[in-house]
């Protein structure tokens, strides 16, 4: 039931993307407003479906938060992206980032719902996952990933905006916010992501300390989250201390997001302790 609703939401987010895109290409704000409405309806249904899945797991007799495997994590990842995006849209009153951010949510949903390798059934928790840290660890990590996802979208926008140069007013690029604003927004997303990733790593170590006997085991997922952390730490140092702005920060943010993706998906191809996140 919940996974059926969730697979429909994939298309809802695809339509949000279409409307945001049409808004930018045609320069009609009305289309953007429709995009916002569709996204808002999408996340309302999305929230409902996650809650429903939670309730259903109790009905099956082994109730647990819906954060226990790759399917559930993708669903939650997409939810955090949309939530953060809508907050950003509401704060900045600009809808163009929707074009670059909604595809991430759409792709995550599509991967979760339609990949043959991913099981959408509700499974009981294996002993290692039975911990109060599951919820805090997953929420902090995924808000971190989502903020880095938004930072990635904003960095792409920055690079596109750089192409504008002299021919102002003609192409759709003019609807993108100014470079200064994009840079500032990107920085804010990196800060949020970095704080959340740090919290995610800390909650993960506290958990690992009670589950595996060591707060740090150099498990590939741990190590890759550290690599991501190091990359964003250098982004923040180069910006805050050396005063880097603009293109270099945008490029580093894209590299950072590539590390996030590897931490999330790539690590599954390496042997390690986080095996329950694979399928």
């Amino acid at each position, binding site marked *: 039931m919940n996974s059926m609703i969730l697979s429909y939401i994939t298309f809802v987010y695809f339509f949000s993307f279409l409307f945001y895109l049409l808004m930018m290409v045609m320069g009609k704000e009305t289309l953007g407003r429709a995009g916002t409405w569709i996204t808002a309806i999408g996340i309302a249904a999305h929230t409902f479906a996650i809650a429903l899945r939670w309730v259903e797991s109790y009905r099956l007799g*082994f109730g647990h938060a819906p954060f226990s495997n790759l399917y559930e994590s993708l669903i939650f990842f997409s939810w955090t992206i949309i939530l953060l995006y809508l907050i950003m849209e509401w704060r900045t009153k600009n809808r163009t980032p929707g074009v670059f951010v909604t595809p991430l949510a759409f792709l995550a949903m599509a991967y979760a719902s339609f990949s043959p390798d991913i099981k959408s059934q509700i*499974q*009981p928790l*294996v*002993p*290692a996952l*039975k*911990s109060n840290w599951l919820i805090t660890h997953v929420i902090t990590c995924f808000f971190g990933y989502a903020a880095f996802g938004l930072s990635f979208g904003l960095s792409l926008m920055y690079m596109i905006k750089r192409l504008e140069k002299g021919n102002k007013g003609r192409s759709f690029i003019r609807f993108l916010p100014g470079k200064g604003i994009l840079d*500032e927004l990107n920085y804010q997303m990196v*800060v949020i992501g*970095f*704080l959340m990733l*740090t*919290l995610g790593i*800390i909650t993960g*170590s*506290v*958990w690992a*300390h*009670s*589950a*595996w*006997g*060591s*707060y*740090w085991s*150099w498990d*590939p997922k741990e*190590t*890759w989250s*550290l*690599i991501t952390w*190091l*990359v964003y*730490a*250098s982004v923040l*140092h*180069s910006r*805050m*201390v*050396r005063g880097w702005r603009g293109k270099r920060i945008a490029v580093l943010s894209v590299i950072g997001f590539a590390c996030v993706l590897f931490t999330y998906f790539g*690590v599954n191809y*390496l*042997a390690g302790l986080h095996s329950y996140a694979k399928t």
Partner: protein
Amino acid sequence: MKNQSKQGNPIWGFLCSVRLTITLLILLALASIVGTLIPQKEGAVEFAGSLSPETAKLLFSLGLFDMYHTLWFRFLVAFLALNLISCSVNRLPGTWRLFKASPRPHREKPFKDLPPDRSFLASGAQNEVFGALEERLGKRWGRIRKKETQGRYYFYGEKGRFSLFGFYLVHLSVLFILAGSIVGSLSGFEGFVNIVEGEQVDSIALRNRMGRMELGFEVRCDDFEHKTYPNGMPSQYRSRLTFLENGVPVYKADALVNHPVQYRGITFYQSSYGTVAGDRARLRIERTGSPKETTILEVKVGEAVPLPGKGGNFKVIRTEADFRGMLGPAVQIAVYPAEEKDGELRIWLFKNRRLLQERFPPQMLKAKALNPSAFPPYTFHLEALESKHYTGLQVNRDPGVPLVWTGCFLMVAGFIVTFFTSHRRFWVRAVAVQGGVRVDVSGTSSKNPVGLERELDHLVASLRDKFQARERKNAS
């Protein structure tokens, strides 16, 4: 501030540079990538086997099979710590000066090029306006400083001074975590022990160093419980443990996954489990002849048992819960014929003989050691073998953990101070003009210029509202 090092020696300048920080962060990241691509420690043996001997030798000499514990990786981390300390020390005087600075309230520079929406006109008598301003601003910033000169009033206030020290908190937190890991590796240990149900141990195997370590007390596993869900997925592993001092039970506790047990500063984690053969077996012995005779015997390892019909006796000498990891339960018996000169005959008996027949040619199974009918007229069958669970416990002591958690806490606190607070200074100028008093508001911030603008907008709006409300009150 980053140019301060110019006057010092170049080595100090190098150590203090943020370029070094970024280089080290990236180097550590790259090294860690290598560490995740090459299997480490336990996994390395198999991986090394798949490489050419030269490559394996090269990787081994670089320590890439246990990279995170090599000298060079530790050197990188130590270098980062040194860089971080140098940077912090180098910036301290500058930060301190900013922290202690008390700018003059009557500065004109902040008001240069002031946008028009940062000023408003307050009607009313001059000293009344000044008084109201002082009261209002005092409420907002606590301590304010004021100055009157040439008929103009100036106020200065500030907030978030402590924010200047946010990054020290973050740097300190990293040092705490590193210190915690050093303390852990110097005075802690990581070990492992398997305890069969009902048995007790007084020492454990160490992981990183070879050899065993005495615990100084005994641990007994009273029971191991392995629960599954209806679909067969594991649900819970539980070891009921008893801790004994000189043989006297003093503490009982259950170790579960995610719920370790601590005793005398040593933590026991439920880590794995398995089965071993117990010391009881049930054998079926057939004697050919007329009449054919079948006997079922319960035997204990090491106990000599007479064969039915006085053909001699036998005993079970070894048991295996899973022979060679694939052939299932097996026992080895030694048979002693009635005439002593014939010596002893050893035979392996398998519970699932079919497993054996599937894997080995029939001629091989006729060998005496594997042939259950090797001692005629008897044929031996293993009916059942008692099996016992053992629990695998990870046994650790890490006195560095409190330092690490302190570091984690400081890091989060430091981030919040560094990212979400800023040192903001405000100047307010009140000048008597025709028709009232013009109030100008200006400010600077150590970071987050957007946030400062928002705060200044709020400040101007709230002051303006205040004065307009007063006017309305006066008018009525």
